[in-house]
């Protein structure tokens, strides 16, 4: 049977240095230059703003966005249920509740919203088995557990949920390979691993995972091109530069990755005309992959970037200002 590894080839023509200024321009003019994509992604606008705002801060260009206007926008997205919608006239979701809180924490403007109502929305989202629903239609996913715990940690209100049950549900999603999926039984996936480790890190329960086994599964994500995939036999994608890398950072195993080839992969995925970073070299760029590519480079100490916190995916100086600590296993 063929032994071909699913991977991409990095060639000399691809960008190989950090195009910092271009990324700043890409992110700060996204709405204008990519009008169609911007309009069509209204249903995730809050997260889109968080991606751009975080990336620009890490790029030392936070002043490129109008903070007051953004704070005002976030305020208008708080619904009567306390949670946040991605944009006005959309239903609230725990995903956008986290993004809203992350944005306001970055701008130090938490007083702009009804915090008690937001906390109550999150409390209500927890089910008896410890899991969290994303919205009133009961979809369950370990992503939502992360959203709940991260949001509450940022505002200092973790006591609003049942922590033991939350951890119990997370651990019920642990698989035979040491990784985690969306729900119990679901296939291990790098994104879900990040979410589950994030929860356990915030709650100080990392002793529950097998760090060596999971660390090895994670470093197996690295392909010959240097890029990381999300699960076995898949192509590499820049966003896994974040989810795999931050997971390894939490487990104290960041040094297990071949840094040079990963940096090469991320840099090759930049667009040297418009700026921005794509999922892999040659593809279309977007703010989502731009953020995670930049976060990956920051974790690896590349470029003139601010430090990123591996659990919250926010600038470390913001986490320091909030006096938050997370558990990171020693390397």
């Amino acid at each position, binding site marked *: 049977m063929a*032994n071909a590894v699913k991977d991409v080839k990095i060639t000399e023509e691809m960008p190989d240095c950090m195009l910092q200024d271009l990324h700043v321009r890409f992110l700060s003019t996204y709405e204008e230059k990519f009008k169609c994509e911007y309009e069509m992604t209204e249903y995730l606008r809050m997260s889109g703003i968080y991606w751009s705002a975080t990336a620009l801060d890490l790029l030392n260009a936070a002043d490129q*966005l109008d903070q007051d206007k953004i704070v005002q926008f976030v305020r208008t997205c708080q619904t009567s249920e306390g949670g946040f919608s991605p944009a006005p006239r*959309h239903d609230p979701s725990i995903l956008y509740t986290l993004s809203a809180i992350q944005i306001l924490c970055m701008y130090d403007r938490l007083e702009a919203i009804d915090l008690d109502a937001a906390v109550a929305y999150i409390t209500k989202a927890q089910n008896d088995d410890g899991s969290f629903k994303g919205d009133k239609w009961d979809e369950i996913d370990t992503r939502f557990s992360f959203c709940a715990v991260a949001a509450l940690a940022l505002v200092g209100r973790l006591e609003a949920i049942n922590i033991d049950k939350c951890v119990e549900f997370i651990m019920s999603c642990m698989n035979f390979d040491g990784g985690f999926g969306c729900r119990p039984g679901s296939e291990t996936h790098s994104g879900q691993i990040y979410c589950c480790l994030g929860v356990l890190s915030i709650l100080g329960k990392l002793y529950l995972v097998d760090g060596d086994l999971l660390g090895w599964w994670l470093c197996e994500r690295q392909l010959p091109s240097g890029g990381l995939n999300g699960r076995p036999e898949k192509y590499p994608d820049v966003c896994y530069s974040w989810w795999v890398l931050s997971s390894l950072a939490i487990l104290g195993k960041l040094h297990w990755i071949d840094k040079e080839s990963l940096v090469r992969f991320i840099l090759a995925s930049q667009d040297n005309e418009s700026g921005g970073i794509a999922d892999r070299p040659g593809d279309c760029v977007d703010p989502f992959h731009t953020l995670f590519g930049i976060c990956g480079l920051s974790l690896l100490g590349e470029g003139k970037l601010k430090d990123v916190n591996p659990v919250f995916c926010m600038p470390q100086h913001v986490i320091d200002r909030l006096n938050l600590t997370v558990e990171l296993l020693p390397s």
Partner: protein
Amino acid sequence: MSDDERGYVLYRCRPEWSDINPIPQEEGPTSVVQIAYSEKFKDVYDYFRAILAKGEKSERALELTARAISFNPANYTVWQFRREILRALDKDVAEEMKYLSMIITEQQKNYQVWHHRRALIEGSKDASQELKFTSKIINHDQKNYHAWQHRQWVIKEFNQWENELEYVDRLLTIDLRNNSAWNQRYFVIKHTTGFTDEVLNNEIEYTMNKIDKAFHNESAWNYLRGILQDRGLNWSEHVKTRVDLWRNENIKSSQFLAFVLSMIEEELKTGDCENVEEKICEAEELCEQLCKVDTVRRKYWSFVVQRLQKHLQ
């Protein structure tokens, strides 16, 4: 429903919609100028916002949600409102499933469509088509995470375990590196027979036969390690015999070498070997080999050498 239909009329030009005042998208916080984008998209969503604000749950509203979905199937607010309309109008679930199946076939990796499907089945309690439907999707994309998750939910909720192992086996015959299928194998056995000694021995043989066909197979090796984790990698004589055979054949696969290394490390940990120094030497040699055949992970293999040396101390 394609928006390239001939004779497509914008909602703002339809007399039967003249009672509605469309609501335009609010300016985003990073907005500098308003430039016209797709006119049809804007028209549909301006009318959707109006219907949503009004809370109108009618046939025309239902049709409008279908149109909105055709433009943007990831907009979950549209799906949620569609569910409310379906409930209010007490619509036939079978009809909706037909429509949904068509959408999923076009938009297979979208959270909202799968969640909608589950919501419908939770209401109707009819999961009779689901294994067939998810097979069709998986046939097209063997690793579709949403399809597999939905399938797991159906099997567990409606007790449809009987033919699943056979299904997994068929998929692994097509592609023995299908990680989702290996995961499903574990899921089925865990929830049915459990990993008794007899089942475990069968699974070991099954997995090693697959490995024999292709040594570079992360999923099969992870599965083998996973099913042995309670009893230990050195528990089965069959495993030891096969591993020795492959060593003699000089198999160079990094995953195989890593497995051999793990077996030695386990022996050292349990104190199950007399010639400790010899074993450590053997393990270090394997690490050296691995640094050469699996260069991207050379730092990990160096870590393993350090771990072995700690054992010596």
